């Protein structure tokens, strides 16, 4: 479980996130939605200990993220940011292999190699594993990054807009992978999504944020309500029943 207790982060007197009080359930896929500047990425980064929190506590699996050693947390939680740019030139396999760093500190054991292969195969990167990242398309590269964080085999996986720059087919494919990781591998995935309908179709819980506060949290059915969402996004929208569940129309 991920527990946020009175978490606050202030960028300036006017821009402040929190106080956040939130419990994200273990297992399954939770989507963070909300308008731009609502504090979704900030919240995710604070949970992933990439951003220092000004007040409050965050616990992941019972461990406080501010005080637990980073190398111990690296076996429990991982985070992938939206933009990834490396100065070094890496092949897909080298990148994914880095995911084993928390365990082997850079010396890959045969077991690490097998796990690396497993996630490369899982994300359909087998044919591309010896290609350099700069030779891949945006969608393939995004899959390689996701393979890297999955290869870390942490219970909790945080993703900041994994569908960014992906077309519809790639987005559906990516959400399919994430759903599979949650269902079959039993991981807990928390992801920032911009598309409400993707969140509605693929996630178990939705956390909606607005102006640095949690506006609503609940199951897909509880959040996919026209009034709630219109209010959060400040745009009139309707919810209709589609073949795969509720769909927001705007």
């Amino acid at each position, binding site marked *: 479980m991920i527990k946020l207790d009175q978490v606050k982060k202030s960028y300036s007197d006017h821009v402040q996130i929190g106080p956040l009080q939130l419990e994200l359930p273990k297992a399954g896929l939770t989507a963070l939605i909300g308008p731009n500047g609502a504090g979704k990425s900030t919240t995710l980064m604070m949970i992933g200990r990439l951003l220092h929190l000004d007040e409050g506590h965050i616990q992941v699996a019972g461990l406080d993220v501010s005080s637990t050693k980073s190398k111990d947390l690296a076996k429990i939680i991982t985070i992938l940011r939206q933009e990834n740019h490396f100065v070094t030139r890496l092949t897909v396999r080298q990148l994914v292999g880095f995911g084993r*760093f928390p365990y082997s500190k850079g010396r890959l054991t045969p077991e690490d190699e097998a796990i690396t292969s497993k996630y490369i195969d899982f994300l359909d990167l087998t044919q591309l594993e010896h290609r350099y990242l700069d030779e891949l398309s945006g969608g393939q590269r995004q899959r390689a990054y996701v393979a890297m964080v999955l290869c*870390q085999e942490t219970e909790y996986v945080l993703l900041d807009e994994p569908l960014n720059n992906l077309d519809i087919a790639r987005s559906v494919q990516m959400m399919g992978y994430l759903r599979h990781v949650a269902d*079959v591998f039993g991981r807990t995935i928390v992801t920032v999504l911009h598309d409400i309908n993707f969140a509605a179709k693929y996630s178990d819980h939705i956390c909606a944020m607005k102006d640095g506060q949690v506006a609503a949290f609940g199951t897909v059915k509880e959040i996919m309500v026209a009034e709630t969402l219109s209010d959060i996004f400040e745009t009139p929208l309707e919810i209709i029943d589609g073949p795969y569940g509720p769909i927001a129309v705007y």
Partner: protein
Amino acid sequence: MSSLMDPTSKTYTPELTTSHTRDRDTSAFQSKQLERRYWILLCLFLLGGLFCSFGLLVYNNPVPVQSPSFWPVVERRITAIVTMAIAALCQSLATVAFHSVTNNRIITPSLLGFDALYATIQTSMIFFFGAGALIGFTGTGAFFTQVILMLGMSLLLYGWLLSGKYANLQLMLLIGIIMGTGLNSLSTFMRRMLAPSEFDILQARLFGSVTNADAAYFPIVIPIVIVVSILLFLSANRLNVIALGKDVATSFGVNHRRSVIYVLILISLLMSMSTALIGPLTFFGFLVATLSYQVASTYDHKYVLPMAFSIGFLVLTSAYFFMYHIFNAPSVVSVIIELFGGVIFLAVLLRKRSL
């Protein structure tokens, strides 16, 4: 396509069920050919460096081998070659590590103000105490005064800027550059007021040159440089992760701030040793690091660091060999290296894609 699109259609199990075979193992190189090329080039560069040092030792020795004064000449030349090895080791390792911790491959550790501080110390010696003082400003005392001043300044910079709440590497670099520029202007101002003869003596010191070095420092410098280099080499795996950036490194469990400060301290030790020993070599480290990235074609510091050293040693020894013994123009060696480095710097900047 449709089966590709839907991973749930495949029967995956959480256990290890892959088609993993030994030949798929992760290598630091993209292909076997690149790995072979790496080892061949590394051997070639090392042999080239050794060949040039051998040439420097015996070529054009004014006295015949049988003569008793043959060995003193060789001994003096050995001092120069050991100095080149130290300079190559310090500059190449420090620059590669600096590029990795700053995630930026177009800067050099001189930006932290080592060269500027060295120039200011030398200039103020002659400015305040006269030419005699500068000529007398040698020996272990003077050497350590400079090393401690340079180390002190850089540690102050790191400690102040990297331990606070608003720790920021970019800000630290900026302050380093501003301090360097300030020190440079100060020493330029002092140089303006020197007599031409004093200026001439000073100028010889301000160009990096292995002839500035004194073998008396070796017993202290060599152990320090070797220990620091080994420490840096042992951090190779951590450097690989740090080079991926702060966020990715943190997510992999690396204490980014502590690791960066540790590596920066090692870099300052190497840079201050090298600068105090032979003077500033602004572009040399950059030139060597950039060439070694191109030649090594791997991300792994275990391979990049030795390659950088071998290239650095080859560049220094061959430049000295050709300038001293073939073209008879000993004073222009550092000018040539800096010019060469400057041109490569521009070339790399213009094809930024390969950085």
